[in-house]
């Protein structure tokens, strides 16, 4: 079988390949910088048991869904207390609960999000914790 | 058929690139607005809708007006509209494109526009407006495209297109009725709280839209070999005349109710628009220009002997279109917000950026229109002399 205009097709394919994989090339240098969210905040140090609101695996995978639910509970249903699977109570609040413990937003939330290239838009309204410029 | 839009004279391309440049300028300014917020417009806490929503309202009328050709042709078997009915349908496509774009540039949080679908709210008129506008866009694209491509092949359009055409008739009325309901159901905005709002909207639509169509048909005839015909243009002229008379009559009714009842809330917006209120009168010259142009156009249109001369008809259509544009695309929206709920006055005037964004959207609409008309005209030139029944 003869490939008509084979040269053009192959050039096209190469360009296509580069375009598609471009994001990965961009990340080449960063692959090693895998995220290590730090939990060394004053508030967490004070905890007897270093536990989040729910089990770590759940938090890691589902915190966005949890936050979405939280804001509907608080803003739409007027429910402001969250009781976790161990019957422990937390006030439903992004700024006053999550960020109270995770007051190192840059070294915690941003660490992962930058790696994943997600940029939650929450902080255009919710006030991020005060941190030293790093 | 799309390829027909890709070949054309130098003049054609100059025009297309001119429009593209305008779209580009509008887009750059829109990016600036996107980043810095609607504060770059002239809108304020008191006048919270302005040029964008005015243009939207006006263009819904232009879109709805296609029905003024569809009804005579398909319901009354008025064969002479055979050639131009498609111009009306494609004008509707371009106009709805502009409507949707104007709504979009007016949103404070455009990224969240899908919330309207994710959280459907049938008690909101805006929800219904979204449905009817998108439906109308779809109907006109399908109808226009199918009839034109059948014409090109010299065959009858498929049978399933007929029900869609009949559906498009009430649909056209619905888009403008629903748009009027955006305004007419708001308590405390006396200027808009009027039962004849929808009727007024339709009357002005059936005057303004067909007037634009006459101008477009004349331009098409001048620039191309496709002649929409003298008679159809005269017939549309008659429609424009009657609709404009109805429109002015309805406006008169509003004046009567406001001033004979002497209810201050009803009078104030009219006073503001036509005479100025408490020393504020930015819109007065515009509104008077609109009124004078309306009278001029009516004089030229009402006498058949004048109307029959195409030059005069064209002048009348320009006057009428500008008059209605000022009245509906500007005065109607701004007037509703002045005075504000505290009887205070905060005036509105669009900023340069806002105007450039609005011009960009118009250019986008005209680009869509140009491409669609280019295709139509090319097909018509190819099939000149062959009449196909739809």
């Amino acid at each position, binding site marked *: 079988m003869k490939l008509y205009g084979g040269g053009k097709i192959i050039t096209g394919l190469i360009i296509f390949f580069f375009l598609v994989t471009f994001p990965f090339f961009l990340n080449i240098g960063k692959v090693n910088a895998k995220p290590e969210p730090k939990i060394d905040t004053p508030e967490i140090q004070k905890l007897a048991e270093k536990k989040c609101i729910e089990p770590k695996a759940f938090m890691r995978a589902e915190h966005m869904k949890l936050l979405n639910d939280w804001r509907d509970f608080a803003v739409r249903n007027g429910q402001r207390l969250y009781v976790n699977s161990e019957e422990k109570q937390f006030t439903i609040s992004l700024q006053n609960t999550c960020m109270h413990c995770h007051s190192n937003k840059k070294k915690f939330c941003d660490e992962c999000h930058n790696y994943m290239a997600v940029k939650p838009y929450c902080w255009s309204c919710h006030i991020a914790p005060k941190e030293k410029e790093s | 058929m799309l390829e027909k839009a890709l070949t054309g004279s130098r003049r054609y391309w100059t025009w297309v690139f001119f429009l593209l440049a305008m779209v580009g300028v509008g887009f750059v300014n829109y990016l600036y607005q996107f980043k810095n917020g609607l504060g770059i417009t002239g809108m304020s806490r*008191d006048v919270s809708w302005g040029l964008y929503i005015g243009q939207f309202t006006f263009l819904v009328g232009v879109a709805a007006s296609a029905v003024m050709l569809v009804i005579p042709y398909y319901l009354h078997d008025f064969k002479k509209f055979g050639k131009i009915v498609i111009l009306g349908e494609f004008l509707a496509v371009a106009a709805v494109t502009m409507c949707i774009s104007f709504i979009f540039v007016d*949103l404070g949080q455009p990224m969240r526009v899908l919330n309207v679908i994710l959280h459907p709210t049938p008690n909101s008129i805006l929800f219904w407006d979204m449905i009817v506008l998108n439906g109308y866009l779809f109907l006109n694209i399908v109808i226009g495209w199918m009839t034109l491509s059948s014409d090109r092949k010299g065959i009858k359009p498929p049978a399933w297109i007929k029900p869609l055409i009949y559906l498009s008739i009430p649909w056209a009325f619905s888009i403008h009725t629903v748009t009027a309901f955006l305004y007419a159901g708001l308590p405390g905005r006396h200027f808009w709280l009027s039962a004849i709002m929808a009727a007024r909207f339709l009357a002005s639509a059936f005057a303004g839209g067909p007037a634009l169509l006459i101008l477009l048909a004349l331009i098409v005839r001048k620039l191309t070999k496709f002649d929409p015909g003298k008679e159809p243009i005269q017939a549309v002229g008659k429609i424009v005349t009657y609709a404009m008379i109805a429109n002015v009559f309805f406006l008169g009714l509003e004046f009567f109710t406001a001033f004979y009842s002497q209810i201050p809330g009803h009078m104030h917006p009219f006073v503001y628009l036509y005479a100025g209120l408490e020393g504020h009168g930015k819109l007065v010259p515009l509104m008077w220009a609109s009124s004078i142009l309306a009278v001029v156009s009516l004089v030229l249109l009402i006498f058949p002997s004048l109307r029959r001369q195409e030059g005069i008809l064209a002048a009348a259509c320009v006057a009428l279109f500008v008059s209605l544009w000022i009245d509906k695309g500007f005065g109607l929206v701004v007037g509703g917000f002045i005075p504000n709920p505290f009887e205070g006055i905060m005036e509105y005037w669009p900023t340069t950026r806002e105007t450039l964004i609005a011009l960009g959207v118009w250019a986008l609409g005209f680009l869509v229109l140009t491409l669609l008309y280019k295709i139509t005209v090319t097909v018509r030139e190819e099939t000149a002399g062959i009449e196909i029944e739809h």
Partner: protein
Amino acid sequence: MSMNRRQFLKIAGASTLLGLGGASALNALRGGELEASHVLTDEKALNAKRWAMVIDVSKFRTEEDYKRLTKACHSIHNVPDFGNPKDEIKWIWTDTYEHTFPSQPNEYIEEGIKNKPFVLLCNHCANPPCVRVCPTKATFKRKDGIVMMDQHRCIGCRFCMAACPFGARSFNYKDPRLALKKEEENREYPTRTIGVVEKCTFCFERLAKGLVPACVEASREAAKAAGGEPGMYFGDLDDPASEVRKILSTRYTIRRKPELGTDPSVFYVIGGEKNA
């Protein structure tokens, strides 16, 4: 690619899938291991069938009495002050009798009332036109009568502003953080961002914790300090024993534009002494 990245993508993918299902509140959480998690309202929370407010203008004497209310509200809610009427954002403010009650004009009204500032805020209408027109339910009426704003859902169409006959709503024409001083921010409450509408919420976040609205508290504190009665009362309109109902049954009160049928929940005591 390292293993870690792949793990991440898996987690991310799974969570988006989960996110798609279960629109209702706790579905995703209840899915598996978190059977027991649930939400409650605080026991301390203040509840009502229909929250309402009575404002007794005769109790306000000095300029300071009004400023205090606005300051209390605007500072805890991070309401910016742009200093111009075009971009202005306000939740609670004052205006003259003539502007507050434009449907009851009276040239010859008593001087004291003519020049007295009236406190204005969202009326939390029982039949709110803003809720009727909102295309996304971003503004909605809660079970306790509060007309609430969900900033997360607002698309900024400003239909609610056209619909509100009381001018209670403000739009963020500019980034509010431009007009907020970092030091003065209340770090426990969010700001807003460009392109959303905002207004008074009857301090729903304080009610949830058992506190009365900030303006009411400010007027109570001022009254205590000066040894008088406060100018603002807050309570359940549905409860005949509530403070607001007691005043409504003993004093002559009026509401703004009642003829429009929105049924406002904010009442004004204009003048005169107790007649009961």
